[in-house]
């Protein structure tokens, strides 16, 4: 038995278990797992683009919010799958706009630009909603826990498979070479601008789709809920927590994070953000390689 077969079998069993869960699991387990899938999608898509290239995007909440708002505007009028598709498309085009105008910005400037983009969108929408449409919030179609669960499971699965495929393809290699030396990769014939923008758009459309599905859980949204900048930073934190070097790192980070959040919000509701802040500072200063780093070190010492 080789390593690849074992891991494939493991993934198959897990997937089988997850698909059958709604038939025997408690409603709470479905809600918790849907949350985990949401964070897995947000984190893995962030790592898909930002991991290899080294660009720090703080616009995740713009794409997530675009999905949420799509659901708020059209979820009562069209079938669910179409809403998801529209949400994904809108995020795709938002990312295209950001990509075209800003990907020549380097380092911290790109981070600031994307951060500003979210705020611009939020404040424009706030102004538009209060002055033009005269609404302050919108109601979203509510779905059953089971529907949300299956949608999120499918989305998380597709995201992970796509990222795995991308990482091992020549496009993934090209992205990595951009992260190492952008000018050199341009010289060896990689169309860096096109590749960067396309990857950014595709990864963002997953986030938009995720926003559409998760919006149905909130029933009521307003611009401040939809475009909360927290959703830009949390995925980065989860990626750091898990370790961004391997694909299972961000997934692990998302699972640990969601579970911790679940425990802490019920046990210490007034201090849990404080705890997260401390955890964040701790992980960044003492575990820069995340959980994956620890596992790798353990494995290496065992082999030696």
């Amino acid at each position, binding site marked *: 038995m080789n390593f690849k077969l074992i891991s494939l079998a493991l993934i198959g069993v897990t997937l089988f278990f997850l698909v059958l869960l709604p038939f025997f699991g408690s409603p709470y387990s479905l809600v918790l797992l849907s949350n985990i899938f949401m964070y897995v999608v947000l984190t893995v898509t962030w790592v898909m683009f930002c991991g290899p290239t080294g660009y720090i995007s703080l616009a995740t909440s713009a794409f997530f919010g675009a999905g949420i708002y799509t659901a708020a505007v059209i979820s009562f009028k069209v079938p669910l799958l179409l809403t998801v598709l529209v949400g994904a498309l809108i995020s795709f085009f938002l990312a295209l706009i950001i990509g075209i105008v*800003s990907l020549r910005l380097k380092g911290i*400037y790109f*981070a600031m*630009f994307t951060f500003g983009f979210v705020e*611009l969108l939020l*404040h424009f929408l706030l102004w538009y909603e*209060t002055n033009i449409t005269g609404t302050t919030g919108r109601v979203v179609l509510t779905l059953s826990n089971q529907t949300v669960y299956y949608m999120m499971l499918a989305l998380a699965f597709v995201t992970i498979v796509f990222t795995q495929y991308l990482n091992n393809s020549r496009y993934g290699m090209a992205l990595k070479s951009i992260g190492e030396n952008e000018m050199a990769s341009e010289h060896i014939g990689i169309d860096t601008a096109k590749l960067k923008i396309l990857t950014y758009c595709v990864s963002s459309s997953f986030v938009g789709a995720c926003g559409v599905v998760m919006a149905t859980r909130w029933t009521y949204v307003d611009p401040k809920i939809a475009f909360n900048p927290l959703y830009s930073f949390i995925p980065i934190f989860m990626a750091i927590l898990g370790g961004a070097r391997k694909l299972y790192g961000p997934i692990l980070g998302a699972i640990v994070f969601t579970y911790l959040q679940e425990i802490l919000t019920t046990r210490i509701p007034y201090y849990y*953000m404080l705890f997260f*802040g401390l955890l964040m*500072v701790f992980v960044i200063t003492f575990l820069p390689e995340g959980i994956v780093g620890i596992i790798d070190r353990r494995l290496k010492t065992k082999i030696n």
Partner: protein
Amino acid sequence: MVTFLNIFIGGLLMGGIYALVAAGLSIQYGVGRVLNIAHGEFLMVGALITWYLFTIYGISPLISLILIAFVFFFFGFLLDRSLFSRLRNISPSVAAFEANSLMACFGLQFVIQNIAIVIWGAELKGFSYMASPVNILGALFGANRLITLAYSLGIAGIFYLFLTKTRYGKAIRAASQDIFAANLMGINIKFVLSLCFAFGALLAGTAGALISMMYSIHTTMGMEYTVIALIVIVLGGLGSITGSMLGGLILGIVGSIVSYLEPGLTLVAYYMLFMILLLVRPTGLMGRGS
């Protein structure tokens, strides 16, 4: 004519506040490469301490200001020594350090904000101090606003002299140009970087003390000011004190014009300006070419 004066002088006074809010972040990022997202939280703590001392003990905000300056300088110095110097050691490159310190500051923002909420709660607070109106050519402004403008111009002047005339000022300027070379020239880089972060904290805290005299304050206000500071330093050029003064004044006047025309779009106008500037001239109005 009075409307014009109102807009212009109002913008100028607002700009003074913005410049002060941004000056600290400008030093922290310009020299230390720490894009301190928690900058607004330092400001918030400064404002709430001032409010607390004034309402409970009746201590004048101008005395608290001096107190806060010392405490925040010390605290900022310690924070750089403990947290950011460690991050500098473990980060393989400047870009990695910028990313790490950005995320660490984001965590710090939660820590500071939530400690403040535990201590002071989350409701709106405020007091009025020296709010008596002053007549400038027919337009009326609160005396505390004039004091703030005077303080921020004074601070800018002192910093300018400090940076150009003293040895440590020269060391800071050298470090902001090329950390590696400055280190080779025998400058104690660790000390200089901690000094810069400490100055940034000092400026944030005192700005908070002044703001508490004019506006209502609350424990969740930090992010607004961080964002303003970010816009101003991009406008003026990262790491240039005179640039952030100029940027603050420009932003103040733009804000004052837009809020006269369509109050709801002030922030939208700020972000538009911010993003256009990032695209057209990312080094800012006074920044050095890249």
